[in-house]
């Protein structure tokens, strides 16, 4: 990634000194009688990368949906740099600098990659600062310049994912939530996506990512959260998560976890 290492994005000043980039407390979401998200609190600092792990159905995507405002919280609050956004819609949260990507991108039969980037750069978000790469530089970084004028649905899945990440980075995000950014992406491209995510963090963006690819999460994240049945069961360093009994139980079931622990 030539050209990226020698950039020194200026650390951004947070609007409210000391307030974390993203702060959620007591966040819950019920679907009928089912608590898909149960009293989750956590803080995400500027420039930090946090992985959100958990077995299938643990509530990871619900968590991102509630944080981003796609779903309303049943209880709890969400703050961006101290600013309470709990009552705001997804588009209004985006205007406060909170952006997200989606797990299942419906491939666009309408827009080309370049048009997608242009659309993103028109965002009404006035907060945050540029991550330091222009649309053309992002295309060059991903070696996508040759595909820039192809309709997105004609491109491979991994390429679409890269363009979506490139697009959202042009929105001057302060907080970025990524829902399975590596799903369906080849290993070489995962490395490239990881480099870019690190670059965004280095320019001060707070990043939360949901991912099944545990190895990539361990390599990328400073800290991980583990959810199980909607509740936060672990928060800490990646390697500690793997050694944690409750995490092993969540993934493997009680019996196998006990056997593993001896």
């Amino acid at each position, binding site marked *: 990634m030539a050209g990226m290492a020698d950039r020194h994005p200026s650390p951004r000043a947070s609007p409210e000194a000391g307030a974390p980039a993203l702060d959620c407390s007591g966040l819950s979401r019920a679907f009928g009688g089912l608590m898909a998200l149960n009293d989750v609190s956590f803080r995400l600092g500027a420039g930090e990368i946090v992985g959100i792990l958990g077995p299938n159905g643990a509530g990871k995507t619900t968590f991102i949906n509630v944080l981003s405002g*796609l779903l309303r919280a049943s209880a709890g609050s969400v703050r961006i740099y101290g600013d309470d956004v709990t009552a705001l819609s*997804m588009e209004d949260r985006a205007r406060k600098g909170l*952006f997200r990507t989606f797990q299942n991108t419906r491939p666009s039969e*309408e827009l080309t990659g370049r048009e997608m980037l242009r*659309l993103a750069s028109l965002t009404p978000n006035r907060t945050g600062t540029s991550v330091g790469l222009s649309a053309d530089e992002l295309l060059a970084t991903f070696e996508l310049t040759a595909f820039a004028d192809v309709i997105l649905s004609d491109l491979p899945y991994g390429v679409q994912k890269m363009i979506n990440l490139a697009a959202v980075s042009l929105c001057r995000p302060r907080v970025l939530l990524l829902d399975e950014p590596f799903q369906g992406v080849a290993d070489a491209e995962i490395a490239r996506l990881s480099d870019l995510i690190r670059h965004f963090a280095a320019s001060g963006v707070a990043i939360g990512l949901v991912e099944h690819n545990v190895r990539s999460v361990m390599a990328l994240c400073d800290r991980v959260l583990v959810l199980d049945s909607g509740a936060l069961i672990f928060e800490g360093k990646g390697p500690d998560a793997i050694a944690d009994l409750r995490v092993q139980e969540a993934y493997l079931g009680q019996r196998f976890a006990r056997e593993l622990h001896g």
Partner: protein
Amino acid sequence: MHRLIALLPWLALVAAMAAVLATGNGYYVTVAMLMMLWAILALGLNFILGYAGYFHLGLGAFYGLGAYGAAALSVSYQMPMFVALLVMPAAGALISVVIGPLMLRTRDLHFAVATLALGMIVSDVTNNWVAATGGPMGMGGITRPGEIGIGPLAIDGATTSGMFLITAAIFLALMIVAAIARRSDFVLILRGIKSDDMMTRSLGFSTTRYKVAAFAISGAIASIGGVLYAHIVQYISPEPFTFFAASFQAFVVLAVGGLGSLWGPVLGSVLLTGLPEVLEMDPHVKLLVYGAVLLIVTIVLPRGLASMGQVLSARARARASANAKIKEHQT
């Protein structure tokens, strides 16, 4: 070079208009006016349907609103046509802005049905509110504009050729607006909505506002079409504004011409308005031929007549590369 090529269709359009006018044949001039009218309706529909992807099946409501409003302004208030040209699109846009947020809560088939109902309501009103619309008998006596301009540049709006020039000027102005809009940020955001509404919202856009704006632009342009219709024909009745005569026809013109394209509305209108006039045969056979032509166009050119150039050049490229491969193989 690229810019010159982009100018060619405009030159062809103006040349075709001049040629029609030069014939001095009232029938040709009238058919050309109808073509422009349908092109105007289709280019208006393009905003909500072609760009934003919402199946508006009630354009006839706004077309009728423009026509009946123009008739009332002319017959009851003796207002000149240009007043209707200002008032009726404003009314169309205003009504759209009021009902749009409600209608655009729905999408896909639900939006189609909601707009269909809107068209039916207006059709019903034109038939039954006899005091205001004349009911099935309609309204006559709509006064065309008189002399406009001075000296040798003056045109007489009361004549067919004068009305043609007025229609052509409005049509060209709307085409220029459409050409500029097509490259605008606004239309890019509409296309983002068509592509994925949720993704576009996640980028911070209040998509409902953009959809309402597109709905209002379509309604306003259809109202302009209605005003022109009332002054071209000088008599209006409910029939031309019913679902099949208006809303559906505008949809077919745009779909055959090419959704989301600049020249699609023009090409679709020329084919669909011109064909029934050219085909002088038994009405039943005519309908069969008409249907067959539509079927062939939709199968051969699913992206509309406006994509013909792309399809042909893609074929030429494919043939060229195939030939090159054969040569490579031979040597």
